[in-house]
């Protein structure tokens, strides 16, 4: 099969799966739905592997499928895909993790009445995500970008009877759209500047542009606004924790492994552009750093198992962004990959726990589950170790690379990131220990019914756990190996700045990491493996409160943006419409009606008066026209 064939195999099966499940879903059996849905990502994974194996991709390939539309006079926007190493890597992540999560979902969702609808959405999501990473131009990329936002909306509000979930879904979509506006404006400015929106063509025409060209800075800033929305950076990150309203596989797939990394992908994809705007890069770095510390600190005080993971996702995204900010694009993508493994693992494991506890999500009501859910506990532990950066798990390598890169760019950024990784370790251990160790704190009834999940759920967990363990070796640091596989693979796609740090720094960093993790692990074990339910409520100092309430960011946003706009809208609707706009129509009408009534007495019916007015009229005309006064 040739290259085009593989492309079609990657693109369309998910869409077909969506259509079949979406249109005929209610008529299909659950098994059929599940199988049809899984075909999509699996075919995609297979085709991607085939491309990886058979096509060396020495140079990027663009395949035009059809002419989508034209902008302006004869400037075509094609529905065309672009394949380079970055695309293939992203496709691996997407279809790989996607396949696993599809399989997982068959087990997880098996009792849900909206089973086929769920798979339809998942397939649609994968289609959009594939579109996003393969789109050869920014408009198609944007189509995928919005498509994943839409699927996120649909899946967060999947259980649509719950009004809160609906709100969360809307919030996610709207916040994404704020970013999208920035993105699309960036696209416009690019299109106007380079007269094309094909990524390749834009990259080709960079030669003559100076660094920090104002237009480029503006474009990159606007694009970064899009990134903030999609990848949950400050100030647009508050939607992501709320997005945990959706079913757990969704949280794993969309809100941890793939969609939120789209922003990272975008910056990596446009790395040449961003390289021209160091100003923007600085902003990206600091945004990432601050996002990382802020969300990590919030995660310290969350009690919902998924919320903790959500904030940890935001925090990890902050890491990735700061890597982008220091122009270490490959590192960021590397972290995307490892993060996809361990965060999906964590979420799915958490889902397994939730599944086993009939939907319980609050860690206050957990504890001691290791006896009931052995496999889940182990894979969760693997995931935890990976995320806190314990060598030699996947997270260790990527995180270490990020810290090193940031250090070489900005010392203070490094310090903050290091702090946030301490926080990460603390809240992850807290989560792990309070869930699986100690005594069960929930009701007796749930305890009795708590059970390990079926194999269809556990299988993906095991695969992911395996990947979380070995994933990091794809990018070993220089001091261990000269073959950084990811870097080598991606060197055709993007241009990193070179970050060199001394070996001494690197060793000491490792050392400190290991020591710190040990200390934190022990402390955490002592505190949380025996914690009582009441103890969760005891921590009531001001800082905890602020953290538990997410720095009151939602409230602040509401006061600054949404409420004024709402009341402005109400004012427009109730006051200005009636007294401002309507007045154009009403006032002349009322005036004329009044005039009509006022003038009626002129027509008094009195003959003498009529004769007088005829004469007066005549006199007036005579004076006006004959004597020309």
């Amino acid at each position, binding site marked *: 099969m040739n290259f085009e064939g593989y492309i079609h195999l990657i693109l369309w099966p998910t869409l077909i799966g969506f259509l079949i499940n979406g249109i005929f879903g209610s008529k299909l059996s659950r098994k059929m739905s599940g199988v049809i849905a899984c075909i999509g990502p699996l075919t995609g994974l297979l085709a991607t592997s085939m491309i990886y194996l058979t096509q060396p991709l020495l140079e990027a390939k663009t395949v035009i499928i059809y002419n989508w539309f034209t902008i302006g006079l004869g400037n075509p926007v094609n529905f065309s895909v672009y394949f380079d190493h970055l695309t293939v890597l992203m496709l691996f992540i997407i279809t790989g993790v996607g396949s696993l999560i599809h399989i997982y979902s068959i087990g997880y969702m098996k009792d849900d009445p909206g089973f086929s609808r769920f798979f339809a959405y998942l397939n649609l999501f994968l289609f959009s995500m594939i579109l996003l990473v393969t789109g050869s131009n920014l408009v198609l990329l944007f189509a995928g970008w919005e498509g994943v936002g839409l699927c996120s909306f649909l899946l967060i509000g999947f259980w649509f009877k719950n009004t809160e979930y609906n709100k969360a879904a809307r919030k996610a979509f709207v916040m994404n759209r704020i970013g999208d506006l920035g993105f699309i404006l960036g696209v416009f400015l690019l299109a106007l500047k380079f007269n094309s929106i094909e990524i390749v063509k834009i990259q080709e025409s960079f030669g003559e542009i100076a660094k920090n060209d104002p237009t480029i800075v503006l474009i990159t800033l606007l694009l970064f606004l899009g990134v903030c929305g999609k990848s949950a950076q400050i100030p647009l990150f508050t939607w992501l924790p709320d997005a945990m309203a959706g079913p757990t596989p969704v949280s794993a797939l969309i809100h941890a492994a793939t969609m939120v990394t789209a922003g990272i992908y975008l910056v990596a994809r446009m790395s040449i552009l961003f390289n021209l705007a160091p100003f923007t890069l600085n902003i990206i770095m600091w945004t990432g750093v601050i996002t990382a510390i802020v969300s990590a600190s919030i995660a310290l005080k969350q009690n919902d198992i998924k919320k903790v993971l959500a904030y940890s996702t935001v925090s990890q995204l902050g890491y990735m962004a700061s890597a982008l900010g220091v122009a270490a694009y490959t590192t960021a993508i590397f972290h995307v990959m490892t993060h996809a493994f361990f965060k999906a693992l964590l979420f799915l494991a958490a889902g397994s726990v939730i599944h086993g506890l009939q939907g319980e999500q609050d860690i206050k009501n957990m504890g001691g589950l290791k006896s009931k859910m052995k496999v889940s506990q182990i894979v969760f532990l693997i995931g935890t170790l990976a995320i806190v950066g314990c060598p030699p798990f996947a997270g260790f390598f990527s995180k270490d690379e990020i810290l090193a890169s940031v250090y070489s760019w900005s010392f203070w950024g490094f310090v903050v990131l290091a702090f946030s990784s301490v926080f990460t370790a603390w809240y992850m251990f807290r989560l792990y220990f309070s869930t699986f160790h100690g005594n069960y704190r929930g009701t007796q009834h749930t305890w009795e019914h708590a059970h390990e999940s079926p194999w269809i759920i556990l299988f993906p967990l095991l695969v992911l756990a395996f990947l979380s363990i070995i994933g990091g070796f794809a990018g070993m640091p220089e001091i261990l190996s000269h073959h950084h596989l990811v870097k080598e693979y991606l060197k055709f796609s993007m241009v990193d700045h070179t970050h060199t740090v001394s070996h001494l720094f690197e060793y000491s960093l490792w050392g400190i990491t290991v020591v710190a993790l040990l200390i934190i692990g022990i402390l955490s074990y002592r505190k949380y493996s025996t914690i009582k339910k009441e103890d969760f409520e005891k921590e009531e100092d001001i800082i905890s409160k602020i953290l538990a309430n997410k720095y009151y960011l939602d409230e602040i946003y509401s006061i600054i943006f949404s409420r004024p706009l709402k009341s402005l809208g109400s004012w427009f609707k109730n006051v200005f419409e009636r007294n401002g706009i309507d007045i154009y129509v009403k006032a002349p009408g009322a005036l004329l009606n009044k005039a009509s009534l006022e003038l009626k007495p002129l027509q008094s019916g009195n003959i*003498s008066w009529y004769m*007088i007015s005829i*004469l*007066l009229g*005549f*006199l007036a005309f005579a004076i006006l026209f*004959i*004597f020309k006064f």
Partner: protein
Amino acid sequence: MDKIFYILSVATIICACMVIISKHPIRSILFLVATFFLISAHYILLNAQFLALVNIVVYAGAIMVLFLFVVMFLNLNKEVEAHKGVFSWFAAIVSGGSFFLIVIKALEQSKLLINDSPNHSIGLVENLGHVLYKEYLLPMEISSVLFFIAMIGVVLLNRKEKIVKEN
């Protein structure tokens, strides 16, 4: 001659004013008759004897008698009209006066035609007859329609109501 004109004119105006001033309808009618007679006198002065005669016959003789008849018939002779509305008098006099002024002003600003040797015998019956039946035959014929209409109208308007039911 000019004195006759002035006297006649002043008398005409005074009579005319009396028509509108006098409160009693009969008196008004009589003053109007007097006015018409004075106008006829003017006509004689202007050598329009035929018109003078017709004026007396038609206006003073027929029309005013008709008026008188109606006033008597309707028993209006006792009705004395109260001249209230000072305002309406004021308005009427002001507007009438300005009409007069306008005509004076217009007259001042324009010259009238001057005919050096006018034919002053046109007012005689013979001359008028010639013209009437030659040049002005059409209006002459058509005025018959006018009278016909007036006749039907009077009959129509004051016929006694009789309702004839058709089968």
